[in-house]
């Protein structure tokens, strides 16, 4: 095991952090938030120019051949500044389907456009009664000549308002919650029958409701094998969760830094409030939770492209559960330790707290993943008989 970055990874991280130091900051971020798209096209272009959008794709497809560790590095840096650009939706999630489910022709068509930042993607999967159950798919796909016709209503597609193309899951056969019978299709956001309705989430990022009404897609719109979509979705979301955990770690550690800085400067009763031992201990608890989250995220990152689906899912659920718990502890304590200023939109702490709360919910909250892990038998093997 080697926890050190390679030279390339260090360069990547330094360059990205330099970019974000220039382009982010409380005021600048607020202007991006207020823009109609809710992020900065200029920053997005810089991110693409740096090659980050090409990062996770194979070199022969036009990518940089980066691994899950590279994505972790990028996501952590984005998390530190609460970056708003649709990197997660486009490169991690959408890109995940292209990489894991796309055939050579599909990859050849899409990777260059993702890489240069011109194509934005989203994944529309969740439905009204699905909660966090990945196999719940009511949206239907009916074979129609060479292609398919899709009908259904999808919810909460991250970045769905900005996406040019949207991956959707639909059911070819089986009951609503069956693992078998699901397929993943890529549809144009402006195809006839596709309606999107965008809105903001609590943390200012954007999502969309996506309705599919007799949407006709060609055979080439299918990603992966018809009917075997669940395994593809499970793999891509596991990788996405690992990336999201890395984003949370970045946000937690930035929020912790902010809080410690506040403890050193805010004075009450004639002293810095950081002199009060109870606050010191709270800050230490935040620190421990952040480091635990970082460690389990590394574990999930390492396992995220494992071909052993069970092993991969257990690691990812463990990470999501731990990161969710830690994020809540760090977020709530940060507000408490800031006192009144923590409660306002005028200070960064609250923005971090809200993002961390959303990350806990995304793709299943802490409790969901705890149950899932418990059902899968936990993390450690029982002693050999």
């Amino acid at each position: 095991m080697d926890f050190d970055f390679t030279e390339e990874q260090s360069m990547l991280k330094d360059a990205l952090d330099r970019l974000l130091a220039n382009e982010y900051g409380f005021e600048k971020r607020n202007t991006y938030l207020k823009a109609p798209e809710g992020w900065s096209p200029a920053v997005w272009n810089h991110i693409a120019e740096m090659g980050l959008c090409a990062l996770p794709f194979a070199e022969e497809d036009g990518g940089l051949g980066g691994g899950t560790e590279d994505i972790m590095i990028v996501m952590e840096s984005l998390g530190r500044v609460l970056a708003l650009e649709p990197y997660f939706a486009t490169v991690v999630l959408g890109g995940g389907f292209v990489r894991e489910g796309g055939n050579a022709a599909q990859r050849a068509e899409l990777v260059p456009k993702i890489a240069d930042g011109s194509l934005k993607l989203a994944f529309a999967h969740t439905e009204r009664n699905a909660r966090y159950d990945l196999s719940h798919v009511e949206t239907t796909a009916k074979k129609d000549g060479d292609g398919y016709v899709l009908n259904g209503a999808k919810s909460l597609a991250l970045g769905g308002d900005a996406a040019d193309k949207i991956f959707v899951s639909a059911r070819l056969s089986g009951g609503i919650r069956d693992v078998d019978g699901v397929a993943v299709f890529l549809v144009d956001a402006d195809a006839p029958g596709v309606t999107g309705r965008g809105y903001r989430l609590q943390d200012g990022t954007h999502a969309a409701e996506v309705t599919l009404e007799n949407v006709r897609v060609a055979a080439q719109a299918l990603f992966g094998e018809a009917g075997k979509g669940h395994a593809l979705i499970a793999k891509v979301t596991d990788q996405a969760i690992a990336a999201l955990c890395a984003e949370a770690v970045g946000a937690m550690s930035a929020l912790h830094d902010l809080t410690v800085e506040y403890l050193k400067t805010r004075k009450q009763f004639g002293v810095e409030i950081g002199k009060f031992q109870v606050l010191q201990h709270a800050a230490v608890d935040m620190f421990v939770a952040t480091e635990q989250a970082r460690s389990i995220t590394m574990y999930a990152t390492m396992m995220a492209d494992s071909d052993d689906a069970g092993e991969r899912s257990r690691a990812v659920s463990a990470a999501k559960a731990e990161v969710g718990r830690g994020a809540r502890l760090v977020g709530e304590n940060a507000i408490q330790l800031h006192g009144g200023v923590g409660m306002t939109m005028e200070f960064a702490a609250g923005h971090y707290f809200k993002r961390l709360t959303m990350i806990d919910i995304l793709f299943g909250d802490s409790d969901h993943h705890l149950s899932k892990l418990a059902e899968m038998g936990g993390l450690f093997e029982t002693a050999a008989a």
Partner: protein
Amino acid sequence: MDLRFTDDEIAFRDEVRQFFAENLPNDIHAKMLDGEYPDKDGLVAWTRILNSKGWAVPHWPEEHGGIGWGPMKQYIFLEELQKYPCPQPLAFGVNMVGPVIYTFGNEAQKKQFLPRIANLDDWWCQGFSEPGAGSDLASLKTRAVRDGDHYVVNGQKTWTTLAQYADWIFCLVRTDTQAKKQEGISFLLIDMNTPGIEVRPIVTIDGGREINEVFFTDVRVPVANLVGEENKGWDYAKFLLGNERTNIARIGVSKQKIARIRELAAKEMSRGRPLLEDPRFREKIASVEIELKALEMTQLRVVAADAKRGNTGKPDPASSILKIKGSQIQQATTHLLMEVMGPYAMPFQHDTGEGWNEPPVGPDYAAHAAPGYFNYRKVSIYGGSNEIQKNIIAKAVLGL
């Protein structure tokens, strides 16, 4: 010892329930169920309904408009009010400045202000905290300098809840800069329409508009608006912060939240079944219920002791227990309610005046869940943070 309610108390509870059911306007009830508060007009209307029944200030002495209910009845009334749920009359008036005025104010002040507080003719806000004076309230800097029949006030208050609606603000101001910090503070009543007052809103993390900064520039306040004696304001402030023992734990609010959590968890589906059937989720509800039941009994012990001894109006460390546990439970319920909504807690569809008038994303009851969770982080910060409450218990009860 008989731990049951008496027949008289039960009959009283039923009477109160019936009154709320018959008199709370439907639109206000719907908002309250949804986790929202009524706007200014709504609260004024409701307060007047209560007041015409004589129930806006039941905890006040009879000579000032109260009803002479003992602590137990007051407690039952408040719990039923919160559980229904009805909006509570504006605390800054009926629980804070009202009691200060009838205890320490002069006759003219009692006559001028008390009936208008009970009827919510005057909307009051609380001007204690300043940017540099939060937990260490006594270090406040807003100055009041005597000039003939007036004080001239300069300085800044902050976190002032609902100051945007206020007709009056009660302020702690520094009138003596030489004395020990607690001994140079006075309690002033200031008309918000006086020239030199500026209110600037602060948006809270849930997107709400409930707090403000209030700036004072050469604001002339008649000396007649001083409560009690000059430089004794700290004593009145301690009285104000400490005399509320029945309300601080907000047991009824948490009971109502738990009922709401059960109701909505029966509607939300998880893996093909109602979430309420998920044993893990039920355990979490049960766990909060246990804490709440214990706190309710603690609360009733305090109320019963008050009933025996008569409310001394002195700060009681029991308030600190009620505040700490009560805030933790309220926060736990807001988190659980957010969990009920699953991913539908995420869309921001909170009406902040920017106007969310689109159809809901997901169920029509999810919009306030996450904002409620964010907003309730405040309850362990304001009114003496939980750290400060623990300091009080450590010192006053444990002798540490």
